[in-house]
């Protein structure tokens, strides 16, 4: 089951790369929770429920940039938790911002049930209990 969870998360990133916001919600449970409280964005709610919220969140976030790419540099399998270490490059006109951050996915019964966003890998791993 653990490897299946990793595969579901990978499919979510592949769909995100294609900007396929119909597939991404289909991978989530109806009560999917997106929690960015550990890495908040001004004017964005830091907790939202439902796959529609997730799709709206990403569409709105991406609309703020002229170009945006995100690479997953490492995936850590923690049974029902999957940690993805990410690096993004966001452009708006001449401005470019590059950041490292971490996603902590919770997967249950073949569906994504929660995504928490952290500023660092350590914070994400600490939240999973994989790091003391």
């Amino acid at each position, binding site marked *: 089951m653990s490897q299946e969870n990793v595969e579901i998360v990978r499919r979510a990133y592949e769909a995100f790369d294609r900007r396929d916001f119909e597939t991404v919600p289909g991978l989530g449970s109806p009560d999917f929770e997106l929690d960015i409280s*550990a890495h*908040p964005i001004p*004017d*964005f709610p*830091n*907790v939202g429920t439902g796959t529609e*919220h997730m799709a709206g*969140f990403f569409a709105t976030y991406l609309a703020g940039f002229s170009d945006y790419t995100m690479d997953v540099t490492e995936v850590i399998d923690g049974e029902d938790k999957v940690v993805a270490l990410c690096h993004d490059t966001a452009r708006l006109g001449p401005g470019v911002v590059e950041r490292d951050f971490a996603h902590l996915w919770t997967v249950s019964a073949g569906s994504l049930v929660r995504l928490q966003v952290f500023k660092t890998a350590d914070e994400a791993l600490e939240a999973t209990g994989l790091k003391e």
Partner: protein
Amino acid sequence: MSRENVEVVLQDLEYWNRGDIDAFVGLWDDDVVLRAAEGWPERVFRGKDAVRSFYEGFAETVGRDSLIEDLIDAGDVVVTRMRAHMTGVQSGLEGDMRFTQVTTLRNGKVVLAEFFWDHREALKAAGLSE
């Protein structure tokens, strides 16, 4: 005094949610200090007028629909894990704003309010651990 401090915090939230800003600020000490969460345009507000301006901005961006998810009575300090329903002014996204407030009281008045996105960080600031 500890239970009285909790009552002050609960009363203040009630004033906030019903939009009675004068009563809300009335429970704050004249020399109150407020430390906003990371990322807020200004981080430190000193005195009632400054605190009022912070909350007026908060009401515009986050709204007034706040509830307490968890409360810890730690004597002079009250830790409240909050959840406020909001719609982003620019983003238009609807959802919740979750944060933790650490409130320090003296003589029945709020003297320090600190806001944190990370609950664990708030507990550390309050001298508590999860």
